[in-house]
């Protein structure tokens, strides 16, 4: 990311040790889109297809795969993020990663959010988003 914000990756990387579920994310070099390392070793735009890591060893394996893909100039800016699988779907924990996973909460007709809809994946408008996020937060607090 360009500019002066703190990178979000550091905080999330630390949580691998606690046994939280994680997935590997990055940006695809050719078009810059958000991608996740999938079960079959390819890079997918849909977090629902991401390979889950629940142990440090599994997370290390994701990191190694990401480095290889980065070295092969497929992707850049790789990092692990925390996810939950409640309700049978993989979904990020932080607000920022929810945004990266689903696309902007505006212009439902234009961006990644439109593609999600076509594929029958989760899309949240800004009004609904607040509710969903609150729901997730509650889960987090309880967990």
């Amino acid at each position: 990311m360009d500019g002066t914000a703190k990178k979000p990756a550091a905080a999330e990387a630390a949580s691998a040790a606690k046994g939280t579920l994680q997935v590997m994310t990055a940006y695809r070099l050719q078009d810059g889109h958000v991608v996740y390392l999938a079960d079959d070793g390819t890079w997918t735009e849909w977090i629902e297809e991401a390979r889950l890591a629940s142990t440090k060893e599994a997370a290390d394996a994701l990191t190694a795969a990401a480095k290889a893909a980065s070295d092969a100039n497929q992707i850049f800016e790789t990092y692990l993020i925390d996810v939950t699988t409640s309700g049978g779907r993989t979904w990020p924990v932080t607000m920022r990663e929810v945004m990266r996973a689903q696309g902007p909460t505006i212009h439902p007709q234009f961006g990644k959010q439109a593609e999600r809809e076509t594929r029958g994946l989760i899309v949240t408008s800004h009004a609904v988003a607040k509710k969903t996020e609150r729901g997730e937060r509650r889960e987090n607090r309880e967990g």
Partner: protein
Amino acid sequence: MYRYDEFDQVLVKERVEQFRGQVERRLKGELTTDEFRPLRLMNGLYAQLHAYMLRVAIPYGTLSARQMRMLAHIARKYDRGYGHFTTRQNIQYNWPRLVDVPDILADLASVEMHAIQTSGNCIRNVTSDQYAGVSADEIVDSRVYAEILRQWSTFHPEFSFLPRKFKIAVTASANDRAAVRFHDIGVIVHRNDKGETGFEIMAGGGMGRTPAVAPTLNKFVPETDLPAYCEAILRVYNMLGRRDNLFKARIKILVMSTGVEAFTKMVEDEFAHIKDTALRLPEDEIERIRAYFAPPRYEDLSAESKILDGCLLKDSAFADWNAVNAAAHKQPGYVIATSSLKPTGGVPGDCTAEQMDSIADLAEKYSLGEVRVTHEQNLVFPYVKKDDLYALWRAFVRLGIATPNLDLITDIISCPGLDYCGLATARSIPVAQQLSERFADLKRQRDIGELRLNISGCINACGHHHAGNIGILGVDKQNQEFYQVTLGGHDGADASIGDIVGPSFPADKIIDAVETIVDVYIAQRQGKERFIDTYRRVGLKPFKEKLYAAH
């Protein structure tokens, strides 16, 4: 109208080919991520939250119809059918593919456009008054001096690796429309008693985590010394500005830490050394550049328009719009018309490819082929005949850009926020959309009157929240969006930074909080006092009491 000169054309074409080569090498792995980053940034290509983002420079916000059509073409062919006009009079595309960017830049170059100086620690694209050259209240066309500074600063070898980015704004009107006091260098054009042109030069203004209103270093720098004086400021900054801490690297921090007097002395000393060198502007060079901004061939019209007067009488919706969105022109029979990119519930500054194409058509038909982008994220038609204003307004209505809200509460400046930006800590656009809906009633908006409401999604303050009469800053509190409110910011000639009103509000309370603030203002105001005047008279207390009454 303004056009690039021959040097720029060569320069820009060379740059496109250089970047094409750099992209190829990156894709082949000959350049690493870290090696490529500064190269793409030098060409306006950022890596954002969802994708790359390309920021295209629009010098002084001035666009020809042909250029606007090209922006539409790029949105349609390479992006997702829309673009976002920014608070620095530029346009951003949110979804360009790296592999397409060299072609996008080549397309831009074909209409004398580029993405140079839109990123990186250099002197950024110079901004100016959107009414420059046409406003009834200006001394001269400020773009002449903005252009001199652009030519001086473009690829300036000494200033291509500054401690941090550097922004300059120029105005020639007492009604500062370019927020010059919030820039690293602000320039106000003055005329002295002898009729000579000169500049009040300020430095060290800015927003971000440490907002500052720029103090004046020199009240009257002679016309010929503009580049030399700016060079002196830049030299002092380049030498002494902090490079050890990103958050303290802007010139405002240097000016604060040395004190204005000491800083000014260093600048004046440096200026004394360099003012009689090649940096002195020859009169014929000023004339050459002035020719680029020569007034168009106006028709000889009477100051009053019977057609306009008749339409104002028969169509009250048009009269409402005219009262707010039309401004006085210096040429008799002409008017400046601002189309709003803030429709009710819309995304401030966003424009679809279809709208851009239609705007280009309208510019050709009604505004001598020219449009201007404002830092408030609207589009100005600078050369409209009063006789044509009604027809133009009707076209605006069809396009959805006729909201009569200029400088009213729904004319919200908003950064992209967490919906797009990699730096954001909270969303800003959805807040703008909800506020725009809450205050949609035009009668109420007009009753509230002039009120600048600005929203930023993080401390970097691209949404100018510090300068908003009501400023909203999005923050992340334990993974929830909260919004901090400031009151009393102002970006005009009497600029001020907003005061934090108290603890921040959760996302579902911020809209009500703004409504409470407005209610307090209405209750407190005397006569036709604007929000900012009431606030300056009564201070934070009554707002605070009402906002936190329940707590």
